[in-house]
């Protein structure tokens, strides 16, 4: 999506407060939360809303993120609409229970603020915290600006509750989380009509003798993963539908894959998260100078929208994957995923994996512009390239 056009409904707020507004409007029943920089403004804003009587969810503040996620699972198992938020070390402390939440098919919505994990200590935008959770069974979405974060966290409840899978929405520290800019707030009625309560198939009920997550045999465990695969296979369509229905109400479009000026493009920048905005400006500058550049924004990372991604990338001669993360021993996670996605394609583009912005290093528009010029039609390598 593009940055919103200024109108009288706009209010100035940062990305984290936009998330808190989205959560308030989604009316969860329970919100177990533990503070951590740079997520804390989400928690603070929700507490402020609660103190004003505007947020009625049961806010639990346990002693760790692990317990926060345990609280999410228990509340979700009772049929509650549940929200939590975290970042970096906090997400990593939840790791064990991320598998549990997904395996137990709990439609929890979590907002993660992408931040470098220790060591060494840092507070900077880098997506390795959430990307390293890619095998836990959570749906993962990435947003590019505060408006996108507000819209997406609302859509996440629809996706989670329709699929019976937990959904993690991510935005970059500081460049989105602490960036104050105009955001359009939808009305409470609009969000309520968009997010009706759905009947839950898996739910604990004190009047029915039943367990959730009880010991099973090998075949039964195997079956749970086959069922998760079926649920994951439906996520791309659910995300498309969630975006279309939201656009019908607000005029703001979103999709698992989003395109910017890709008509006739010879080179495409592939981005995820905040760098997308800078890449839009880079594309405009390249186009103005006669370079046929375009942008592919990956909004849905897990499950990867494989068929659409293959069809989209077949249209371009060169693709530059920009990774604001680094998986030691391999390279950028998005680069790995896209290399695998292109497997067996005759018309695959020349693919380049660029480690741009790892550790929160600023990536100016001039750098992206120069990278596109440098790699247009250049020979490819499976190895990642560190961007200076």
């Amino acid at each position, binding site marked *: 999506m*593009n*940055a*919103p*056009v*200024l109108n009288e409904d706009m209010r*100035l707020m*940062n990305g984290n407060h936009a998330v808190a507004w989205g959560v308030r409007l989604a009316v969860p029943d329970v919100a177990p939360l533990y503070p951590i*920089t740079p997520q804390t403004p989400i928690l603070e804003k929700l507490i402020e809303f609660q103190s004003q009587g505007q947020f009625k969810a049961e806010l639990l503040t346990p002693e760790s993120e692990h317990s926060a996620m345990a609280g999410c699972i228990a509340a979700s198992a009772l049929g509650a609409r549940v929200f939590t938020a975290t970042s970096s070390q906090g997400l990593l402390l939840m790791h064990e229970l991320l598998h549990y939440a997904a395996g137990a098919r709990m439609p929890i919505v979590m907002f993660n603020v992408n931040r470098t994990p220790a060591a060494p*200590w*840092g*507070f900077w935008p880098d997506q390795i915290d959430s990307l390293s959770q890619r095998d836990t069974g959570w749906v993962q979405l990435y947003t*590019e*600006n505060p408006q996108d974060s507000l819209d997406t966290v609302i859509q996440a409840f629809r996706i989670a509750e329709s699929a019976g899978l937990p959904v993690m929405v991510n935005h*970059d520290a*500081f*460049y*989105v989380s*602490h*960036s*104050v*800019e*105009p955001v359009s707030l939808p009305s409470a009625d609009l969000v309520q009509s968009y997010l009706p309560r759905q009947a839950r198939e898996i739910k604990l009920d004190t009047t029915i003798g039943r367990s959730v997550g009880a010991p099973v045999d090998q075949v039964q465990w195997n079956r749970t993963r086959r069922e998760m695969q079926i649920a994951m296979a439906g996520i791309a369509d659910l995300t498309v539908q969630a975006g279309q229905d939201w656009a019908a109400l607000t005029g703001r479009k979103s999709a698992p894959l989003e395109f910017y000026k890709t008509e006739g493009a010879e080179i495409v920048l592939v981005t995820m998260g*905040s*760098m*997308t*905005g*800078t890449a*839009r*400006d880079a594309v405009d500058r390249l186009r103005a100078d006669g370079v046929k550049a375009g942008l592919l924004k990956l909004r849905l990372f897990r499950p990867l929208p494989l068929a659409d991604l293959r069809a989209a990338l077949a249209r371009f001669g060169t693709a530059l994957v920009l990774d604001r993360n680094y998986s030691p021993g391999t390279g950028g996670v998005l680069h790995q995923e896209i290399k695998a996605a292109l497997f067996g394609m005759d018309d695959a583009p020349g693919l380049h994996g660029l480690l741009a912005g790892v550790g929160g290093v*600023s*990536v*100016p*528009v*001039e750098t992206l512009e120069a990278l596109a010029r440098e790699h247009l039609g250049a020979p490819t390598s499976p190895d990642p390239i560190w961007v200076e």
Partner: protein
Amino acid sequence: MIEIIILGRGGQGAQTAGNLLAQAFFAMGRQVQTFATYGGARRGTPVMSSLRVDDGPIRLRCNIVQADALLCFDDSLLDADFLALARPGARIVVNSPRTSQDLTGTGPHRIIPVDGRAIARRNDMGKVVNSALLGGFVAALGQPDIDTMCRIIEQSAPARKAENVAACREAHDLMAAIAEEA
């Protein structure tokens, strides 16, 4: 697009100043984006706030490389790294009791001092300097409109609203007089 950098020490209000300035530009119908970066934020460590102002949507998500205007809350932070962030011809306003001649000795830039501490004290604001510095900065930049700036400060100040506005206006008027002389 106008790009602005504000540098202060944690607790001085550099981030708040960035937000207030953004609100004033926004109230005048401009698009804005402001963000602060800090590490293990604690009082006394440097905090940098960045502000972009434009007529259309702002999509850049990167640091400002060359700012059009800079505001420095503490002249001890006025070093070569900070001055390297200034575009040639940029306006640099610094909170300092020193004279412009003393400060220009540090580099090829024209640096405009505002004695924020003295103005704050005169207006019963103690050590809280950000309203005064905003007034001086707005005068040096020529925008946003000082009345809009004062209105935003009045709406946002948690206490001493009249004193905050008076400090902002005094610094603005002092600076505007100097600008006219120059």
